[in-house]
């Protein structure tokens, strides 16, 4: 299996290369330069700026220079945050998003699987209907609406939690919950659907016929099979949640990497944009690989090739 994983990792390199190249070309052709501002910059000063940030010369020279730096692990200078490298910005903000994302997704897994399981075993009863309704609501309600409602109720009216900020555990509660809601909803629906299907299968009937307690039937036999679609869903979902959310991080004033995905483009910060795209691509590839491996571990029928 080790060889397969290594082969998959090597196959990721051309994918990342293509992603970064496309981003670079797009940023290079975006109207307006990183240094455009309301004040006109005299030509010699503009030339000095472009030289300093390796944005002078032909497209080929700039692209070659960037790839050369990239091969050495240097993601370049940020043109927006002038005293920082892209490496430094990512190193400071990515862990913040990862902590928040881990918390959110861990909660989503626990809540989603529990709720989905409950709904499946009580199918068509009142509990099931409520859970399905809430899951639909959770998927439909936009993050920013939910965030503002939660802030209004829990932070302003009840004064239980801080309205925003980063640095203490209570400041994690609202943003993590907010971030997890769409995942809770999706995971609930996934688990419910998958479990309902599995509970109808022959091996479940056999297990029951053997006289196993219902809990053993459910957890030891049914859930093990029903969990497969959740693994598949979780790969890209975790990649997304770990690399931050612009909405949640902006509303709660969290110093994560999420806002850079949009703001670096608005600021025409070319290397920063390439950097975050690269990070997201890397996470996506790694998480999908992890999901495939988990599939393989859980279900021996899966071929990793």
């Amino acid at each position: 299996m080790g060889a397969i994983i290594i082969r998959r990792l090597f196959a990721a390199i051309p994918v990342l290369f293509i992603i970064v190249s496309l981003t670079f070309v797009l940023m290079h052709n975006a109207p307006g330069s990183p240094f455009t501002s309301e004040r006109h910059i005299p030509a010699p000063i503009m030339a000095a700026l472009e030289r300093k940030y390796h944005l002078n010369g032909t497209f080929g020279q700039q692209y070659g220079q960037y790839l050369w730096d990239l091969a050495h692990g240097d993601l370049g200078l940020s043109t927006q945050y002038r005293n920082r490298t892209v490496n430094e910005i990512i190193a400071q903000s990515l862990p913040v998003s990862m902590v928040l994302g881990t918390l959110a997704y861990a909660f989503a897994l626990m809540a989603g699987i529990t709720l989905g399981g409950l709904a499946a075993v009580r199918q068509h009863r009142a509990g099931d209907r409520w859970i399905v309704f809430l899951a639909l609501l959770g998927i439909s309600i936009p993050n920013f609406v939910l965030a503002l409602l939660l802030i209004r109720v829990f932070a302003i009216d009840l004064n239980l939690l801080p309205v925003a900020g980063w640095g203490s555990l209570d400041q994690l509660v609202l943003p993590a919950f907010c971030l997890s809601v769409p995942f809770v909803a999706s995971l609930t629906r996934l688990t419910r659907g998958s479990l309902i299907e599995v509970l109808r299968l022959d091996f479940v009937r056999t297990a029951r016929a053997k006289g196993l307690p219902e809990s053993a039937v459910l957890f030891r036999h049914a859930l093990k099979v029903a969990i497969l679609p959740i693994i598949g869903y979780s790969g890209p979902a975790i990649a997304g949640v770990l690399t931050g959310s612009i909405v949640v991080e902006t509303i709660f004033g969290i110093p994560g990497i999420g806002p850079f995905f949009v703001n670096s483009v608005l600021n025409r910060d070319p290397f920063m944009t390439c950097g975050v795209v690269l990070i997201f691509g890397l996470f996506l590839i790694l998480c999908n690989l992890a999901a495939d491996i988990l599939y393989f571990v859980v279900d021996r029928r899966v071929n990793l090739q």
Partner: protein
Amino acid sequence: MALRDVLPRSRTLALVAGLPALGLLLLGAFFYAWGGWTLAVPADLTIANGDEPQTLDPAIVTAQLDQRICTAIYEGLTSSDPAGNIVPGVAQSWEISPDGRTYTFHLRPDAQWSNGEPLTAGDFVASWKRVLDPATASDYAYQLFYLVNGEAYYNRTITDFSQVGVKAPDDHTLVVTLSHPTAYFLQLTAAMQTLFPVHLATVREYGDDWTKPGRIVGNGPYVLKAWRLNDYILLEANPHYWRPVAIKRIRVLPVRDANTCFNLFYSGKIDLILDQSSIPPVLLPDIRKQPYFHPNPIGATTFVRFNVKRHPFDDVRVRRALALALDKQDIVDKIIRSGEPVARTLVPPGNPGYIPPAGLPHDLDEAKRLLAAAGYPGGRNFPDVTLLYATKGTGPAIATEMQALWSRDLGINSIHLRGQEFKVYLNSQSSTDFDLCISRWIGDYNDPQTFLDMFVTGGGNNDTNWSDPAYDQMLADSESTPDPVRRMQILQGMEKILVEDQLPIFPVSFTVGAVLYHPGALGGFASNFVDDHPWGDLYIPGKK
């Protein structure tokens, strides 16, 4: 199936719940050790700043948000008091030669860097040389083109820095020679961080990384103690500053979202909001009635640019008609809603010694007459033109209202909206790729010059294709005359050409910002036209 059947001890359950929990615990522990949870540090005052600083290197800084923090960490030759008056900074006195071109600054003999080293006139010479070195990549290097040979040195037409107009005859005297008498030069030394001193030994040691906490050396009222990206900045009183400050620790929060910022203020986590963009626009009418609201008129004007090379705006009658007809009162009342006054001139009020021209009134009849005379009676046959604006803030709403007003009042139905994302908009504006364009200009210093020199022929911020040799000559005259009264008269004449006669632009409103703080909780704050509020002068009433 009963619920109790589903809740047994089970390994799968332990796995489902336990693994993520364990992972989380580990990650949390790692992060704790890594030092992420340090916001518990106490501060006496928390100030909202609308975004993460781009840089704290005074030679490079351009954004107002960054300039605020720089003014706390560094100090120029002169400084501003809370009311915006020029007061001594590092220089305790100065003399200006009769021709207005030579400034002799006498530095405080006890001036020190925040590491205790003496701050000398030579530090200014070296810092200005650094700005004029293209390798420093300073956007505002041209602020030193006022010096004799400043521009020549930047462009490397001369390579000997001793020919540039700044000299340090001794440690406490700095002699600056300008190429023109520049009446507002003492404002530049107070407000333009480009002219602030930097500690060269630190810059040389750490390169681009010198502005990090623990490394940075400044000379202002505060020292940078902590700086976490997008999280917070902590400033602490500088013990080596020449006068004591009342507030020992200031925390700065870079909160981008207006709702978040106002929520933090509302729940007492932020003490001072300095920007209107940090206040949700929908709440503004209510917030304006609160005791913590303080209007902050600043030296900035919203105006409309015409592209005078494009038909029909090559005809001054059409430009006049549109300017006369626009119901600006409607726009400030319905759209901007922050109590901004209507503008008839480009230069905002509040420039000492300057008497602005009258400007054009709101005169619909005259506008209709002019439009008819230009060949478009009742707006008929008016060609298709576009109105360029930036799709941020109130930009789209103002543009839509203008379009509606010109349609209602002049019968022109062929003005089309063209909203663009900010940087694209700036690009279109600077390449004069527009017919009509909604613009704003924030003065660099408190002097009409910063508004009027834009429209010199070929000026970098002209952006209208307009050119008038008489105007250019007047600008040159105003720059060379050492007589301040005469100079203001010339500037008045220039503005008259701009807003009454030629109209390559017409003004719409004077910017009024909003500042929030509870009156009993903060003192030492005053609104002023340069929008410069020295943090070293703030105090907490009762704690002073």
